[in-house]
């Protein structure tokens, strides 16, 4: 039982990290209808920028500078890619974000170098042992993961408040519901997109910090976008709670399958397990957990 709990907790924490990346995807999809494949590349770019800036300046300054860089990136994407492509089909925009992915990956590595960098923000690394009284030997929890979970949770709460309570958040939701209607009541679409891409960039920075301090800042960070995709379709493209819950389900499912199913059918199944899980789920609920139900009329 103790072991089961350990796997479960490990899964939940991995899931929170997936949710962090998925969150960026959902934000952008909600506000602009763009399925942003470049989120993973943005995670890599943000983490690389932070790591290299930290060599030259203290941490708070570097964080601030990275946020500014992400803002500039968001501005450039909005101005150079999204604005000319407005009103194009979703698949075209998706392809454009694939192009952005390539561009950012190449550009980031030219600008900041392509080695593996160690990111150390002084996050405690000692594993904790909890529930020693209940189970024999207790349950092992990585404090790094715990920290990540707390950060992710805080971020979600902040975003939820931002979306529900602030003026900009309400404008964002209006744009998400209907571009044209939002524009006709005087919401500036271009500014909204800029804000949303900046927020997504900052979410990418947080994800980059946490993933980067676990794995080191390296090219493979870019690939976690592929991990976040099943999370998003499981939770529903348009739902922030969906991204969180989807991440948890995928995280737990992945760890459970690796531990309990993996040995029977050969290892390495975590690459496709999440996708298959999401796929089976979609067969029952085609819009994901919390996605908006789409009704077609002829």
């Amino acid at each position, binding site marked *: 039982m103790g072991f089961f709990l350990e796997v479960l907790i490990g899964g939940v924490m991995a899931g929170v990290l997936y949710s962090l990346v998925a969150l960026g995807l959902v934000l952008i999809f909600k506000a602009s209808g763009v*399925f942003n494949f470049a989120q993973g590349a943005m995670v890599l770019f943000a983490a690389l920028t932070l790591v290299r800036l930290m060599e030259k300046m203290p941490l708070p300054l570097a964080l601030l500078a990275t946020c500014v860089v992400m803002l500039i990136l968001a501005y450039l994407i909005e101005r*150079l*890619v999204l604005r*000319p*492509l407005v009103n*194009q*089909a*979703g*698949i*075209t925009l*998706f*392809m*454009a974000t*694939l*192009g*952005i*992915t*390539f*561009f*950012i*990956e*190449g*550009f980031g*590595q*030219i600008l900041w170098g*392509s080695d593996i960098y160690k990111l150390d923000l002084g996050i405690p690394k000692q594993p904790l042992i909890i529930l020693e009284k209940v189970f024999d030997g207790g349950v092992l929890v990585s404090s790094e993961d715990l920290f990540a979970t707390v950060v992710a949770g805080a971020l979600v709460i902040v975003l939820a408040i931002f979306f529900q309570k602030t003026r900009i958040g309400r404008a964002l939701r209006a744009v998400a519901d209907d571009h044209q209607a939002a524009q006709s009541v005087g919401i500036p679409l271009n500014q909204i997109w800029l804000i949303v891409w900046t927020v997504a960039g900052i979410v990418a920075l947080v994800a980059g910090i946490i993933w980067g301090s676990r794995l080191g800042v390296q090219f493979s960070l870019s690939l976690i976008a*592929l991990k976040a*995709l*099943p999370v*998003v*379709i499981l939770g529903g*493209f348009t739902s922030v709670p969906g991204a969180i819950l989807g991440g948890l389900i995928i995280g737990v499912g992945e760890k459970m399958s690796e531990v309990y199913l993996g040995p029977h059918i*050969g*290892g*390495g*199944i975590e*690459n*496709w397990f999440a*996708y*298959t899980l*999401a*796929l089976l789920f*979609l*067969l029952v609920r*085609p*819009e*994901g957990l919390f996605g908006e139900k789409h009704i*077609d*009329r*002829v």
Partner: protein
Amino acid sequence: MFYREVGQFKSTYAADQVIFPIRQDRYFVWAVMAFAFLGVPLLASQYLFSAILIPFLILSLAALGLNLLVGYCGQISLGTGGFMAVGAYTAYNLALRIPELNPLVAFVLAGGVTTLVGILFGIPSLRIKGFYLAVATLAAQFFLDWVFSRVRWFTNYTPSGSINAPQITFFDFTFDTPLKKYLLCLGFVTVFALLARNLVRGRLGRSWMAIRDMDVAAEIIGIRPLYAKLSAFAVSSFFIGVAGSLWAFVHLGSWEPLAFDVNRSFSLLFMVIIGGLGSILGSFLGAAFITLLPLFLNQLPAWLGIPMSTALISHLEVMIFGALIVFFLIVEPQGLARLWRIAKEKLRLWPFPY
């Protein structure tokens, strides 16, 4: 005045149903075919065959298959690489385990097996649409990747997981030189392009397009989505399976599961989008563009005489590639085939003002 259909009367039903109804198109296609079959073998070098023409032809075939699914039926698929792998490994295992089987027959059978796999992974398309489907097809990609790298039977228990394809012989004729391989691929591509062209203007293709344009409306006028969607998956997978077996046997020779990873799927989707969704010609233009671009970018620093480290070149290549993709999408979101159509439209009057 060069592309006028004025004066071309159709007086028989056969004339009304020809593949290219306009005479200029017909001449043009014949000229291209003659050049590909006769001109290119005389002119091209060994390098041109094996580095550019053969990959271009095989990828065109795969892009053509994908275009039938994405461009004509509107079902986005990101599992193309996986389906190519199915074709490659099926052909390999057929050739290995039934030695008397002709490899060319094995290619077609590999296409058949890929069809079955494609139908299986096409079933979710009956429930889910759009991006949900795109991500769902990634499940096929990752699952197939995993199967071919983990299940040792498929790779005949080779320790490294990489396999060598046997030579392709047709009775006593061995396809060993690049020229012969090129002609083999060209033959396949010609037959399949003809097949695709006829499929999309027939009943099946029309039902695909109806589903693409609006599936609910199509269902109401009596098109069965189950039949239309799964047949699109089936036909498309058949094309892709054959392309996969050719890619493995003719182009690569020896390969690892990595040869068919998710990047292959993305690059094929790029070809289809940049070439033009729902256009046979577009598949070829897109394949040519995506095949040539990296080669061109690779050579560019050397031509310009700027010394650069290889790491910088490869990063720069990726960066320019991405930027060009975005650029092309902005300039012509409907693909290169649309530019071709515009050019033909202009040629109706040009050089006269009206």
